[in-house]
């Protein structure tokens, strides 16, 4: 049954491309996504009864390719289905061609393939195809900057996957199999020294996919590319990044002899700090959200490396939540940048007044990502910090403080009066005035319409995502039990303590944002930091060497 979860979206994609008109394609796409979400939910309930393993073609498992759905992968499949349904709903009334829908469905199939497969080489193939699909989607509108961004993403991704493939070669050499489970059994018997090289190679490839510290420079380019469709940015940040995190988790059990958790704890925290510092310095809505993704990924990676049950579950739940609120934020940013005609954060004001529903939904997502009490982020962050030693707890609180500062800057656009829309709107008004003066017509004859109402389908998508953030917070521990089959309970005293910390950090964050971030010259200089292509190649080599040296000599 499992292969059809991968094949069906791709088959629908081909069907849409060949047989239907654009108008029909949209309707079929929404219907197919709805049905598919139902099937993903069905799979999720099936897996609750026990792991499903399908060997394709009923060959002996090590000889063929094996797909498996356990709790982890079925949660990710469900997440993919929900996110793509929302993205399809969001892009329903955009005038993208058939190609867009074709690529969207193919992308969905590939991501589900990554979540389901157990074969190391199959992962390589899927990721390579997904890289090309994403780069074509990023440069879908073919403007100057997105061309560069898409090419950068594709080339760095391909190079990283060569590292990964080399590592797979060493695993094959050592074990003689490509199946992850069989390989894990054989690799567990080998001594540590022979595992270091394959581990370093594979983790370099996977590390670029999850955008940890020196390897994240592709992420703001791919996510923040101005002309890329907003739904693509939302999916990239929401689901595509999670495939990297998922692989990171799947690779660790292969190399039980190599304990790199401390290394990745440190790398994750540094990534988180660098992410929010860079996010603070941005003025572009999409870029700010993109760098905030880097910061959240750092948090997730470090929580997964902590090694205790609670932090692991919290990290997973945070990855799940991050997909939801980041999707809502990116979609909201797309809507707002269109409505206001600018992507500059300083020029958008008064969203609550103008678009109350979208404003409230985005505010819910912001509360979610900052970990406000009653929202889903607070639950996941509570579990991440549960039972950690004091200095790690304080580092996590610092990370959250950074996130709050970033989103204090971000949420400034929600408030304010409708009138003070900042320089961009004033420029527009000026242009309009000049135009009318030029043509000597009366001023109200033909006002150019810069602020259309937000279409209803986009509102539904954003509000639904915002509401899930809220529901996921209220029923936090039930959700975790439901999703991951892990019994957890929230200690009320501890939760209140975290709430107090949150209130304190909000105060500090807003003050910090007001008196430092919006004035600082240093941050403006940071904004220009860009590794470039060669820099990323050096970073890949350097990261690889660091992993080798740290694991081999210490």
């Amino acid at each position, binding site marked *: 049954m499992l292969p059809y979860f991968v094949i069906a979206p791709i088959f629908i994609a081909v069907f849409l491309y060949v047989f239907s008109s654009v108008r029909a394609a949209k309707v079929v796409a929404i219907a197919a996504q709805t049905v598919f979400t139902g099937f993903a939910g069905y799979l999720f309930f099936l897996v609750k009864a026990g792991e499903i393993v399908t060997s394709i073609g009923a060959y002996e498992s090590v000889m063929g390719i094996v797909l498996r759905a356990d709790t982890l992968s079925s949660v990710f499949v469900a997440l993919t289905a929900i996110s793509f349904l929302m993205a399809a709903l969001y892009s329903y009334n955009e005038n993208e061609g058939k190609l867009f829908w074709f690529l969207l469905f193919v992308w969905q199939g590939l991501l589900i393939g990554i979540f389901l497969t157990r074969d190391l080489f199959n992962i390589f193939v899927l990721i390579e195809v997904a890289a090309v699909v994403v780069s074509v989607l990023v440069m879908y509108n073919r403007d100057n900057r997105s061309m560069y961004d*898409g*090419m950068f993403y594709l080339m760095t991704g391909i190079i990283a996957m060569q590292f990964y493939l080399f590592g797979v070669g060493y695993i094959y050499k050592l074990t003689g199999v490509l199946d992850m489970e069989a390989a894990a059994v054989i690799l567990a018997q080998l001594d540590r020294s022979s595992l270091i090289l394959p581990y370093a190679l594979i983790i370099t490839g996977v590390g670029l996919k999850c955008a940890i510290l020196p390897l994240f420079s592709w992420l703001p380019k791919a996510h923040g590319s101005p002309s890329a469709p907003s739904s693509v940015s939302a999916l990239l940040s929401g689901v595509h990044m999670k495939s990297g995190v998922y692989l990171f988790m799947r690779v660790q059990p292969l190399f039980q002899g190599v304990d790199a958790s401390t290394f990745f704890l440190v790398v994750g925290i540094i990534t988180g700090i660098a992410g929010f510092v860079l996010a603070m310095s941005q003025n572009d809505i999409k870029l700010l959200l993109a760098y905030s993704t880097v910061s959240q990924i750092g948090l997730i990676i470090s929580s997964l490396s902590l090694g205790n049950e609670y932090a692991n579950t919290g990290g997973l739940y945070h990855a799940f939540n991050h997909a939801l609120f980041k999707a809502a934020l990116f979609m909201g940013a797309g809507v707002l940048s269109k409505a206001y005609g600018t992507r500059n954060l300083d020029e958008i004001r008064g969203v609550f007044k103008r678009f109350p529903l979208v404003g409230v939904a985005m505010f819910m997502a912001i509360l979610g990502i900052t970990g406000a009490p009653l929202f889903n982020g607070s639950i996941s962050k509570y579990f991440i910090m549960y039972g950690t030693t004091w200095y790690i707890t304080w580092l996590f609180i610092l990370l959250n403080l950074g996130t709050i500062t970033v989103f204090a800057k971000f949420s400034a656009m929600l408030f304010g009066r409708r009138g003070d829309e900042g320089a961009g709107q004033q420029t527009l008004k000026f242009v309009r005035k000049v135009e009318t003066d030029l043509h000597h017509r009366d001023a109200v004859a033909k006002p150019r319409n810069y602020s259309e109402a937000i279409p209803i389908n986009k509102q539904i998508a954003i509000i639904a995502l915002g509401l899930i953030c809220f529901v996921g917070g209220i029923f936090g521990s039930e959700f975790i039990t439901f999703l991951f089959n892990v019994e957890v309970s929230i200690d009320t005293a501890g939760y209140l303590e975290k709430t107090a910390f949150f209130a304190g950090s909000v105060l500090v964050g807003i003050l910090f944002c007001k008196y430092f971030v919006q004035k600082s010259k240093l941050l403006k200089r940071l904004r220009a930091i860009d590794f*470039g292509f060669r820099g990323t190649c050096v970073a890949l080599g350097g990261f690889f060497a660091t992993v080798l040296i740290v694991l081999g000599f210490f």
Partner: protein
Amino acid sequence: MNYEIVEIFAVVLFFVSLFGLITSKGVIKGIVSIIIMEISVVMFFLSLGFRSGILPPIGGDVGQNAADPLPQALMITAIIIGVAVTAVNMTMLIALSRQFKTTEWDLLKKMKMDE
């Protein structure tokens, strides 16, 4: 001992191509280095289990002298993926040079910043 020397050659070529990537002035060198990198990985996979007097895994009577068929099947896939990526990269190269009138990384970066 035989396979190890082929393997080391593949490793050396892998890092030669990484050198090419690091020093690549423009997109073209980057694309060429990626092609070379892919072939070096292919060579590594094929070197697994190599010894002199090896035969292709065709027919039933090759026995112990046959090469390992699995890496070969994998590498055909990898080569096709490589050529597909090369075609996409080349198209992007033309598109970039059409729009920016240059394909050097530094200039591209600068132009992107100016926008």
